[in-house]
């Protein structure tokens, strides 16, 4: 075990999988720079053939990834910021997610998409998006969304080995998070959530950076005698519904946190599941803490109004306990 940063964990996962399987390769812009640490050193080790830096043609190289995957390659596609995926939306939504189905199972599309949300860092209206809910909405994808270095490494390795298109969503606000990462090889299974903190008064379901915020809020509230259970779905598609429902059964109260626009999001889904299958456990209204329906503003004083944070989560927890 050693302490590692989230981006280092990603880097290790990529390196290990590139070493393990010659069919794994990467495409994306400026990959040779190892821009923000996630790809550091990969170009030096694997060369252009496998770390293919591209023109600014996201739709193009996303399509290439699909095509290459049909013949057994395992592309890992990197977009810099998740906001750059919209120009490739059709190639993902309409092609990668549906080719297997449209061929009745004749092909598979083992592509991994690295989608970093730049939200919360002043990146402004067009650079801050999180695309996690988009790929929960559209059929054919798995979506992992880790909050810790341990989960990031284990899930990314699983994603690359998965035979389906997997979106690896993460937050720039998680990039510098530190945590224990085993020295030996391990995987985190896709589709299994994790209780990051046990508690009995209220369940907080929080993915990605909001999980970290929720843990901080839980610390704070513990001082007031409030016992918060923090559930990290880790994979948001397919969702570990049982874990969430069993926590809800215990606490009877739920707050859902997500660093994505609130409406038609994964946060709404969890609330909807609670209102259906979890209804019998519910003792209080279910609250969502997510981004406001506003393009993320540039200036910090405004940005913090619209983004989820520890205080907003703590406030919601207090509300459901009233």
């Amino acid at each position, binding site marked *: 075990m050693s302490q590692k940063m989230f981006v280092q964990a990603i880097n290790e996962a990529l390196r290990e999988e590139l070493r393990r399987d010659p069919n794994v390769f990467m495409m994306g812009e400026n990959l040779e720079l190892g821009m923000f640490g996630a790809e550091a050193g990969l170009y030096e080790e694997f060369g252009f053939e496998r770390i293919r830096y591209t023109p600014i043609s996201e739709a193009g190289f996303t399509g290439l990834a699909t*095509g290459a995957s*049909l013949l057994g390659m395992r592309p890992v596609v990197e977009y810099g910021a998740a906001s750059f995926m919209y120009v490739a939306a059709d190639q993902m939504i309409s*092609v990668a997610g549906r080719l297997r*189905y449209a*061929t009745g199972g004749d092909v598979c599309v083992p592509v991994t998409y690295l989608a970093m949300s730049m939200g919360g860092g002043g990146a402004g209206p067009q650079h801050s998006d999180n695309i996690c809910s988009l790929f929960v909405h559209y059929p054919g994808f798995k979506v992992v969304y880790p909050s810790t270095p341990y989960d990031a490494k284990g899930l990314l390795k699983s994603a690359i080995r*998965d035979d389906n298109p997997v979106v690896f969503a993460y937050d720039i606000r998680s990039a510098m998070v530190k945590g224990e990462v085993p020295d030996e090889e391990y995987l985190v299974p896709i589709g299994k959530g994790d209780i990051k903190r046990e508690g009995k008064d209220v369940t907080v379901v929080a993915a990605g950076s909001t999980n970290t915020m929720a843990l901080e809020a839980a610390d704070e509230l513990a001082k007031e005698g409030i016992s918060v259970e923090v559930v990290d779905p880790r994979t948001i598609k397919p969702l570990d519904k049982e874990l969430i429902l069993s926590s809800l059964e215990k606490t009877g109260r739920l707050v859902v946190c997500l660093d994505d626009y609130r409406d038609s999001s994964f946060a709404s889904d969890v609330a909807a599941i609670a209102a259906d299958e979890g209804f019998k456990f519910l003792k209080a209204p279910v609250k969502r803490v997510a981004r406001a329906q506003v393009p993320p503003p540039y200036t910090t004083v405004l940005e913090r109004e619209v983004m989820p944070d520890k205080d907003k989560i703590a406030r919601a927890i207090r509300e459901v306990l009233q």
Partner: protein
Amino acid sequence: MLSNEDLIEMYEKMVLLRQAEEKLVEQSSKGKVWTLLAGVGQEAIPVGTVKALGPEDYWEISHRGTSDAAARDGVDLKRLFAEVHGRATGYSKGKGGNMHVEAFEAKVLPMLSIVGESIPVSAGVALAQKMKNTGGATICFFGDGASNQGVFHEGLNLATIWRLPVVYLVQNNQYAVSTPASYAVSVKNISERAKGYGIPGVTIDGNDVLAVYEAVSEALKRAKEGEGPTLIEAITYRWYGHHAGAGADEQMGWIYRPEEEVEEWKKKDPVANFEKKLMAQGILTEEKKTQIWDKVNKQVEEAVEFAESSPFPDPSEAFTDVYTDLVLP
């Protein structure tokens, strides 16, 4: 050099595509197949192409010409017909249908139905061929209308800078639904767009199966030698409207082509003209011709029978094949 047997075989395949496609139009008119994007009149392009393909080559067909795939050896017309009839015995179990015709096992890549999508996807197949050193190249068909989609540009640029073994063939049938290429495409010949990528662009008679064979052979050779893509523009014409069968253009009141134009092009019938040529050269005889047509018609009838007598998939199949390893409720 093509032998007489080759030529006869090509003729037979053209007849097969013609008859198969006409049959599907008929089936669509009867409501047994969804609205059809019939390729009648464009048969020389798939047949000339298939002749040029090696066994290791992949072929991405366009939405135009539902039966095109059947030109390739190893493709089973029965399963193809079953697919467009929505049957469990179809190549895609009825899930893909007439917009996703494929025979992946015979290296016919799944048709994609959003215009232009296949352009980068086929470059990706070529990339895999290159990275895996399988030999072979990929050829991608699309229409004149697709040359105005953004991914045309991105795909051609990427294929060029990476010298991918891919050939782009635009079936310029001069219309995208009702929109004339002469209006919608800013250059006279789509092959001129090759200049924007520094690759060869050629315009050929898409109704001449031999011209297609030659252009595609040369482009494939170039691709396999590591010199990158070629843009082939094959001028042709579709005899039916954008849609044929159920929901055909005429039925919808869509009128955009002068009747004389259609008539003019019907005279350029790729099947009849090739037939005439082979007859004149004594390669094809009346007897052989009758034999071929009988054989083809029987094959087509059998395919329809197979399709119609095949079961629909079990309803539970709706939820499988989304993922390789799980079925979500």
